[in-house]
């Protein structure tokens, strides 16, 4: 049976290499097929792309399109690559906005994890809005191939759905009208606004950046475990049991972009908890939370342990550095704080900051610096 979703991968290597790179993904995926091609010159590709998109549901671009090897080109008619990935992406988006061509997911990847690419990845360059995903090639095609396959599938499907019917908020988020009233009205408002006035890409981008991939209305598995006080690794199969319970109770998110990204509704988790215990989840320690869950469900969950130097086990978020459960009162804010009000502030623990290996992985916000320096002095003094 032919696969439902096809992507076009433009890369300046020779055909055997290009095809070899995507072979694994193609092998394991039942829904997604990636076909590869040489980028060509700007003159050639910028025109052909419009017809290309008739058969493709998405585009993957290699970031370094500068190889001039003859072997890669294959024939004489093929011209040298003379454009950047960003310019092709820009070209597509502009034309999609004008409705000349359909809007599709555009993914950019690079084999090299050098500084400039990771800046792109961390959204510090202006071309950030153009791409839906920015990946390391190895992660995309090999290391996390199962995840990326699901994400590619999901993105393409969502783009298609959004362009084929009118925007229905309840369908997109997979919630009822009553439940809609429980969500932050500013989020709903912004979402509806973008849906009506902006392009599909803007909408998907908004969903990914301000809803799916950030802690806020939705939370991922790690944060769910933190809020329930559970150590995922040590709890083994018991954790799977809890997840199953949550899914049964429909705490998980099943709206758009839930196939590629696994999330849970933050407010539903709290409601689910309220049915189990009348202790306030936020102000109960992890050991107590786990005890209540074990008593109720007969599981053998193990409570999460505090990160070094932390005083509280009333975990609510995860430390950006160690990815382990953290109570915000022990954390130090990172990044700027002009994010949208329905999103949670991100924190890092003192321990992670001290043990930081990549100086650019995150930055403690300026206003917390003094508090961190004081805390650090206490640790260094007592060590």
């Amino acid at each position, binding site marked *: 049976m032919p696969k439902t979703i096809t992507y076009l991968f433009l890369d300046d290597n020779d055909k055997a290499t290009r095809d070899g790179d995507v072979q694994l993904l193609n092998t394991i995926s039942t829904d997604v097929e990636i076909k590869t091609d040489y980028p060509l010159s700007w003159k050639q590709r910028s025109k052909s792309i419009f017809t290309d998109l008739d058969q493709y549901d998405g585009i993957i671009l290699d970031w370094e399109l500068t190889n001039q090897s003859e072997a890669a080109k294959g024939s004489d008619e093929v011209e040298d690559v003379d454009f950047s990935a960003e310019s092709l992406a820009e070209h597509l988006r502009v034309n999609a906005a004008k409705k000349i061509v359909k809007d599709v997911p555009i993914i950019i990847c690079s084999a090299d994890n050098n500084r400039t690419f990771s800046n792109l990845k961390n959204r510090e360059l202006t071309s950030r809005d153009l791409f839906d995903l920015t990946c390391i090639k190895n992660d995309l095609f090999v290391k996390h191939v199962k995840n990326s396959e699901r994400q590619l599938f999901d993105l393409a499907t969502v783009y298609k759905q959004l362009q084929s019917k009118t925007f229905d908020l309840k369908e997109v988020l997979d919630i009822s009208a009553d439940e809609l009233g429980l*969500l932050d009205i500013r989020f709903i408002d912004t979402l509806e606004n973008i849906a009506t006035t902006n392009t599909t890409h803007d909408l998907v981008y908004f969903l990914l950046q301000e809803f799916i991939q950030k802690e806020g209305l939705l939370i991922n598995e790690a944060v769910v475990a933190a809020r329930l006080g559970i150590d995922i690794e040590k709890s083994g199969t018991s954790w799977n049991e809890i997840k199953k319970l949550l899914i049964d109770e429909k705490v998980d998110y099943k709206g758009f972009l839930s196939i590629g990204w696994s999330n849970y509704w933050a407010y539903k988790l709290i409601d689910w908890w309220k049915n189990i215990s009348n202790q306030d989840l936020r102000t109960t320690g992890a050991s107590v939370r786990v005890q209540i869950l074990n008593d109720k469900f007969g599981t053998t969950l193990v409570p999460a342990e505090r990160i070094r130097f932390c005083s509280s086990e009333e975990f609510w978020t995860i430390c950006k550095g160690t990815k382990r459960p953290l109570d915000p009162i022990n954390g130090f804010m990172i990044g700027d*704080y002009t994010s949208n009000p329905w999103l949670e502030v991100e924190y890092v623990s003192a321990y992670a900051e001290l043990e930081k290996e990549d100086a650019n992985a995150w930055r403690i916000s300026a206003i917390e610096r003094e508090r961190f320096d004081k805390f650090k002095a*206490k640790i260094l003094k007592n060590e």
Partner: protein
Amino acid sequence: MSRMKDILSPREELKNFSIFLTKNQWFNSICVPHDLLKILNNNAKAGDICEYNLVKFPFKNINLDRHVRPDWVSRLAREEEGESRVLLEVACECNCISDEDKISDPIIMLATKIIIQFDYFHNSNVEDVKTLQCSWHLDKHDPSRGTSTSHPLYHYEYGGTEISKAQGFNYGDFILMDSPRIMHPPLDLVLAFDFVIKNFYAYNKHKSLTDDPSYKRYVKNAQYRLWRPYAISFASHFHDFEQTYTIDRAFANNILHCSQ
């Protein structure tokens, strides 16, 4: 003297107050105002009732020096030894006052909790982090729960919880007692914030916020909304206001003590 028209609904006031706070630099250094903005999500379905629940909201970098505490804790409370904070919780449901000459209790439900926490390394060992804690509640008495001892409608009580059971803890300097309930005017979020800021930070630190006329206005408005009915009802026991106001007698009586 009538000022009602200058004061917006509780929800509006709260929203404006929160936004004002996010813009103040000093406030940003002691709190995460972003978390304040979240509780404002209120889809305005319940008419005039303003309802919010602020949970475990931290105030960092507090100044403990002014406070009396056990002798051995004083060694710890010096800046170098540990980290201290105040956690504020405010659960409130209140009405909008439409007619200011009808004096009644605008608050349906109120529970304010102030928790002081102090983290320190026990025996100077960085692996052994301990927390000392004590808390104060300011609640509105809930008549449905009944009462064993009679106490005022709005009362303040002290609860010492989770005192560290560290070895060698010296109870000798510290009195733990069964707490009485003391009358106190209600504190909603605005007033609770004001209370915490003024009690736990030095004046020269918080004056950049508290001397701001906008800030003072928010506090004054909150006091007008909550303390004016309280004060007038309380005063009505000692002065006849029949000519000026209509006073809810049940409210006025309960201020002194709730018999049921």
